[in-house]
């Protein structure tokens, strides 16, 4: 116990795993028989197979209907206690560990805990080890902290769900995998977490698997992620091939040496980082692999908040930041990352303008905000990327949970055209969501402002940046402000467009849901204060905290943005800041004008430019394009391969070989006559043959 609380770091992932085991036992042994009995099904066949119509968004089929008010079975209370409990405990342990880490000197803030030697094969030595350093501590705190709040929220949100325990098994499992991802000390263990969160994402998107669209969305997410994973795998092979190790500290320590000796050429670094980035585009929903994320909204809303906004989708950003030492060696990759990030940011923001499904607007917004983070990575501002990752986790989780609260209040309605005037029904939800909207729009003083502005400034001033990138990002910020306020105005203001039946039941959510909203609202406001830039009189604690992770790297690598920034006058920084705020205010103003003052105008505009509206409304027909350009091609080729290659050639070989084997088997089997005398003879004959054989060999020699 030399390291105090840090020796208990393993508890951080272990606690959610304990939750998986306990809740898993409950789900299998208690809930499943219970649900089967309730459904009157004697055997397997999926829960609720008798209830075909889970068409409302949060599966609240019992909401106010016939079997709505029977007693809560005791096991549900137990699950509702265990699942958030283990995550909360993990948060406490993580917090104590981080505090203990913070008490160390800045250059000693890397703690590695080796759990057990995992793979030892030749020169490949991979331990199962955790690493807590400034970067992984930010991630661990965000994951466990936001995760805990969302678990609590889920208890309320899923209270009408039949497969309650199953849901929390998946959610706990996700926490475990995500914590392995961020706490791993090597690429391979990180990849285990990477795949684990992918699995949980798939399971939770398709949680209501009786619904075709939900299970399709799960599959889509899985396939899109596989494409990215292929990149990560190849990158890992290359890393091992180049560095002879997969452990972060060893790999990054060898960078200068191998760079000097010419083993690690810029070309090699470019290939490795591009492959890693391919993985990141899959996991973090960037062009060209972003298409799965909007569809992932088929999952329960807390899942969208936790996995598809706050944590899992930021794994790509984390990985890029973690590998910053490699990325800085590859200027071409940096440019690709920055451009893809910027283009994704503005591209998906424009799609957000025309969406009417509240969750889909938020989904495109997430894609767009992730684009910002990659833009930051691409210009070398990894600190800014992680900072925005954190603030985004707060306000986007809040937005999703708020939208969930709205959907909950409206018995599953997600279409903003059927909302309006909700302010008076769900005041807490409204107030908290409004705060989050201000934060994401970049209103000064709130968390989103500081992080987004840091990115904009770096995009402009860094040696990897350019005014052009700044322009795109600033424009995207204006659009973001516009569509977010459009969402707020359509949902909470104006006259009600609700179904009267739905309106009757509209209610504020229970405390388990509103309390997490309030906490997240506080974080959305104050979460950015730890990163107030020097030019505004702040001390930018956040950057100092992460400096040991990124600065040695930058020093060893190529030129670094932050140093270049020194040469820019403060007036320029302030000026650009003001400009971006002005752009955001324009967006808000436009939204106010179109959705509060001249509410008929949007429809007119749509009519005026029908083609433009149609293209944007249909998300630029990207899904259709993929369907035509990729999926249908693959299907055609697959059918060809199946009929020509597989059915004729491969099956021919396989069946031929199988026939041969069977025939041979038949022959050999006949040797076994079943007569015991024959057996004894065969033994002696075998012995004689062996003697003959060995004699022959020794004579030949």
């Amino acid at each position, binding site marked *: 116990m030399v390291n105090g609380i840090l020796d208990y770091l393993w508890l951080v992932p272990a606690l959610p795993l304990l939750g998986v085991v306990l809740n898993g036992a409950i789900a299998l042994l208690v809930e499943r028989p219970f649900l089967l009995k309730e459904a009157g099904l004697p055997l397997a066949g999926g829960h609720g197979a008798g209830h075909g119509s889970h068409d409302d968004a949060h599966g609240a089929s019992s909401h106010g209907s016939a079997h709505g008010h029977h007693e809560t079975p005791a096991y549900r209370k137990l699950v509702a206690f265990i699942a958030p409990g283990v995550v909360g405990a993990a948060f406490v342990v993580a917090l104590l560990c981080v505090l203990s880490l913070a008490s160390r000197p800045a250059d000693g803030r890397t703690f590695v805990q080796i759990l057990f030697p*995992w793979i030892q094969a030749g020169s490949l030595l991979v331990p199962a080890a955790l690493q807590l350093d400034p970067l992984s501590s930010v991630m661990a705190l965000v994951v466990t902290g936001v995760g805990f709040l969302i678990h609590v929220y889920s208890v309320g949100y899923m209270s009408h769900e039949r497969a309650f325990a199953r849901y929390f098994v998946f959610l706990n499992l996700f926490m475990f995998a995500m914590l392995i991802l961020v706490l791993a000390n090597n690429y391979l263990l990180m990849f285990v977490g990477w795949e684990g969160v992918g699995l949980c994402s798939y399971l939770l998107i398709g949680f209501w698997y009786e619904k075709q669209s939900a299970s399709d969305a799960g599959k889509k997410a899985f396939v899109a992620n596989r494409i990215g994973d292929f990149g990560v795998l190849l990158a890992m092979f290359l890393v091992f091939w180049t560095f002879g190790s997969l452990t972060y500290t060893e790999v990054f320590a060898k960078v200068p040496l191998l760079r000097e000796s010419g083993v690690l050429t810029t070309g090699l670094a470019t290939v490795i980082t591009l492959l890693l980035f391919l993985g990141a585009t899959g996991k973090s929903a960037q062009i060209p692999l972003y298409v799965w994320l909007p569809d992932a909204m088929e999952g329960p809303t807390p899942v969208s908040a936790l996995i598809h906004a706050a944590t899992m989708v930021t794994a790509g950003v984390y990985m890029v930041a973690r590998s910053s030492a490699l990325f800085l060696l590859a200027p071409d990759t940096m440019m690709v990352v920055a451009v893809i990030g910027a283009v994704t940011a503005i591209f998906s923001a424009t799609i957000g303008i025309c969406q009417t499904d509240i969750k889909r607007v938020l989904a495109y917004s997430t894609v767009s905000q992730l684009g910002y983070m990659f833009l930051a990575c691409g210009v070398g501002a990894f600190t800014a990327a992680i900072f925005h990752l954190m603030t985004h986790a707060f306000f986007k989780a809040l937005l999703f949970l708020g939208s969930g609260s709205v959907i909950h209040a409206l018995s599953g309605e997600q279409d903003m055209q059927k909302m309006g005037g909700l302010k008076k029904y769900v005041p807490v939800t409204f107030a908290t969501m409004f705060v989050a909207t201000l934060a994401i729009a970049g209103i000064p003083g709130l968390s989103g402002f500081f992080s987004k502005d840091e990115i904009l400034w770096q995009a402009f001033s860094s040696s990897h940046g350019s005014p052009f990138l700044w322009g795109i990002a600033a424009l995207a910020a204006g659009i973001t402000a516009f569509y977010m306020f459009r969402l707020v105005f359509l949902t909470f203001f104006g006259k009600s467009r609700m179904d009267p039946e739905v309106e009757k039941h509209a209610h504020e959510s229970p405390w388990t849901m509103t309390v997490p909203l309030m906490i997240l609202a506080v974080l959305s406001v104050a979460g950015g204060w730890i990163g107030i830039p020097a030019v505004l009189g702040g001390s930018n604690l956040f950057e100092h905290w992460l400096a040991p992770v990124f600065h040695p790297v930058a020093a060893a690598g190529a030129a670094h943005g932050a140093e270049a920034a020194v040469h820019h006058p403060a007036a320029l920084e302030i000026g650009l800041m003001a400009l971006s705020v002005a752009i955001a205010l324009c967006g808000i103003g436009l939204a106010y004008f179109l959705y509060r003052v001249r509410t008929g105008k949007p429809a007119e505009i749509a009519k005026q430019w029908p083609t433009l509206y149609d293209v944007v409304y249909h998300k630029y027909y990207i899904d259709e394009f993929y369907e035509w350009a990729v999926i249908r091609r693959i299907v055609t080729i697959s059918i060809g391969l199946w009929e020509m290659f597989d059915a004729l050639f491969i099956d021919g070989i396989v069946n031929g070989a199988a026939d041969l084997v069977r025939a041979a088997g038949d022959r050999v089997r006949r040797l076994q006559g079943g007569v015991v005398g024959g057996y004894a003879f065969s033994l002696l004959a075998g012995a004689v043959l062996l003697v003959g054989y060995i*004699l022959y060999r020794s004579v030949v020699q």
Partner: protein
Amino acid sequence: MFLGNLASLRYFLPEFAVTATILLLVVLHVVTKSPRSTASGFLSLLGVGAAIFLAGVAPAGAGRSIFEGMVAHDGFAVFFKVLTALATLVVIFMSMDSRDLAGRSQAEYYIFLLSTLLGMFLLSSATDIVMLYLALELVSIPSYLLAGYLKGQERSTEAAMKYVVYGATASGVMIYGFSILFGLTGSTQVAEIGRSLAAGKATLPMLLASVMVAVGFGYKIAAVPFHMWSPDVYEGAPTPATAFFSVGPKAAGFAVLVRFYYTVFAAADPGTGLWRLTSAVDWPFLFAALSALTMTVGNLVAVKQSNVKRLLAYSSIAHAGYMLMGFVLLSSAGIEAILFYLVVYLFMNLGAFYVVVLVSNATRGEEISDFTGLGSRAPFAAVALSIFLFALTGIPPFSGFIGKVYLFAEVIHRGVYWLAVVAALNSVVSLYYYTRIVRAMFFEEPKDASAIPVPAVSGALLVLLVAPTLILGVYWEPVARIAADSVRMLAF
């Protein structure tokens, strides 16, 4: 340096535990009124558990020769004692659950089982050919009784009969080989024999002896062409006994095979992890041929089987073939691979047999057709059996895959490429017949769709067998380390 008889006793505690249990069982058999009482089963569990405990936490000073050089007390022997006792433990559980054995005298059955275990203990540690022969017979004779335990059932009686005749022939040939060795060297100590043979040059009697001994050991591990007995015995014997034969005596057979050939006909090159031949007998090549033959015949014939027990019998012949690959490489890593494979094989093979017991308890049949629709009739057992079968095939992420990786890696490392190719092709063939069972369980409609209940205790045991099969597929380091340590402690 040999330890005298009395001083040796403290290194003989596991054997004492087993012997004491056998004696208690004899008493129990006489005093209990109901021969069907489960007390004898529990008593056996206790005795074997104690033996595992005593063997596993053996007193320090492993690597000594005890009982005047009759028996070795070394890491290698300890490994096999724990392994065979573990197999026996699982088989006792299976036996207590088996409907085949219900209604028959229990105590006698366990007496035979534990006597075999005692024989296996001695077989894996014997260093004197007289002791070795006695141990082999102590394994064989109770095995004959176990095979014929289902008195009144024709197949069982036939199995015992064939086993006796075949076993007698094999052990006759073997002891003839021993007598030649004694005649050549004037010693019964294997180490002494090895030294003497190394000094002389190859003679015809020496070649004859090496092959004749191979017959005896080949019979014990059921290597082709000395395998003929095993399908009939496996099919006729009560299923738990079959499971036992396929793991326990086979493992002990490998123990004695390795110890004997690596002492008599080879010597370690210190520090290299390699061994060299000391006599002109090219037995590695001989056994490489046997290995290829064994796995090929086992797999080919398994393809045509419709009885699951018989299929698993041939499959276990094939697995002996795979393990023989590690035997011919003259390297410590090869032996380590065998040891590791035996551990994973223990769990996956016993697991497969256990599901057969559970199914035949309900269906009274062991044909593949009795397994149709098991996926819906007993989903847990069906999934477990699928895991065992995939592990036996050697598909990742199950333990069998890692076992094969170790074997194949060392075969390739030592440059015996042709053998690796033969084994790889054989694995493909094995996939065919293992998946036939899986297909029957999940893709074919059962005649009778009623659920097959799996009692909680059986389910728990199944979990205990599935767990290592899964865990050793992803985290095998500790077992690999134990195997490596056991080989390092191979002392004579």
